[in-house]
């Protein structure tokens, strides 16, 4: 079994005439926490959306667990794998959204079981067992029958993490998981992500929490203007940045 869970090579993406991603390359290994930092508009969310197939790349190669999802065709345009393969690879990559995107008309339990039952064809009892276990891990066992609108932002985000985990993805992506939360609620979400890191769940985290990134990420890339400006270990990129752009970006987080 390959140790590279996700590999991104020379990925490009443009919207109309605007190039949002230019020649992005990196790879994520099993059990690693991979951080992506950078200013707003640097393309980090778009990158995550390309990896999770919410956007299509304009060019370059992405492979999931050794299987090619997209690569450059002979005519230079992006050539995607057939739909069935894309679906299979999509299930290997989970995503936690910035604004949760829970299903408001389902209870917490059903938010966690719906895809297990209707996508993975798990029996209902088994799906509920998986969901109950995850809710317990998230400290939300008492909220199984609540509806998302009855929960705090931090609780909603923990439910959405549990919802993603219920499908046992190989790689779990986070798109600024605490940006929509009040400061006093970010802690409970970061704690959950910390627990997942301890369990060696492979994660790609786009974040604005620099302290958190330094503490948790094994490796980090700093993006600006659609390119990877700097990459390395968390300590290298955040504590001893070499590039002027990284230094000025991180300078804003120090007082």
């Amino acid at each position, binding site marked *: 079994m390959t140790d590279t869970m996700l590999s991104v090579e020379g990925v490009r993406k443009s919207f109309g005439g605007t190039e949002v991603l230019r020649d992005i390359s990196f790879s994520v290994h099993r059990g690693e926490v991979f951080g992506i930092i950078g200013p707003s508009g640097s393309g980090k969310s778009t990158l995550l959306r390309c990896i999770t197939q*919410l956007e299509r790349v304009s060019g370059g190669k992405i492979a999931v667990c050794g299987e090619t999802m997209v690569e450059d065709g002979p005519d230079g345009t992006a050539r995607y794998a057939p739909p069935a393969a894309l679906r299979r690879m*999509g299930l290997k990559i989970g995503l936690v*959204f910035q*604004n949760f*995107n829970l*299903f408001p008309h389902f209870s917490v339990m059903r938010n966690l079981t*719906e*895809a297990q039952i209707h*996508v993975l064809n798990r029996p209902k009892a088994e799906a509920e067992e998986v969901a109950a276990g995850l809710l317990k891990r998230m400290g939300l066992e008492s909220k199984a029958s609540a*509806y998302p609108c009855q929960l705090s932002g931090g609780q909603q985000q923990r439910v959405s993490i549990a919802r993603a985990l219920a499908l046992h993805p190989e790689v779990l992506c986070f798109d600024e998981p605490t940006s929509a939360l009040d400061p006093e609620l970010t802690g409970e979400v970061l704690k959950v992500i910390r627990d997942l890191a301890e369990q060696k769940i492979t994660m790609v985290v786009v974040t604005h929490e620099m302290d958190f990134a330094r503490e948790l990420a094994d490796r980090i890339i700093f993006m600006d203007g659609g390119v990877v400006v700097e990459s390395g270990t968390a300590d290298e990129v955040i504590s001893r940045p070499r590039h002027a752009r990284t230094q000025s970006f991180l300078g804003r987080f120090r007082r």
Partner: protein
Amino acid sequence: MQFWPMVGDLAEGLGTTVAIFALTLLFSLPLGLLVALGRMSRVGVLRQAMRLYISVMRGTPLMLQLFFFYFGPYYLFGWRLGDLGFWGIDYRFIAVIIGFSLNYAAYFAEIYRAGIESIPVGQWEAGKILGFSRVQTFFRIILPQVVKRILPPVTNEVITLVKDTSLAFALSVMEMFTIAKMEAAAHTTMVPFMVAGLFYYVFNFAVAAGMEWFEKRLDYYK
């Protein structure tokens, strides 16, 4: 004029009124959803065709449309559909159901469209990320939320439909308004109109109460 026999005749007509009402909803609610999906389709021809359909149905009188479906087959093609029988159902009644269903589908389509477009794109994206197909996402995630949001405008249309059923008098279908008109003319009295008006009001009162109950039932989430 005797009062109670007249009320009995009107009540009989009310049965036909309710039948027009119920059958129109039965056909136009699903048809409206199909029209809405066509109207939002990525296929340009389909989208334009549904636009035209909605435009014509909303832009011409319902009464004219009823005449079109009743007389059209004979005037245009020489078909005498009235002679076909249709399991003993008068073709007038069938023409009314066709006209009402096609007309109301156009209005419902635009309500559905507004509802579907009001659902945040994040719901579609969450569905996709979790591996649901587009069809699964639509029926499991999107449509239930749409139903909750469109209930108030749908209630408006449904209440209008109760009153619009009286247009069937144009094809002499024996519904309540047609009978009220005949009785009033025969006895030169306003009473049948007043009784019919009361019946319409009670009918709509029940419809509004039913829709309110349905809305309350969906109140468990925001």
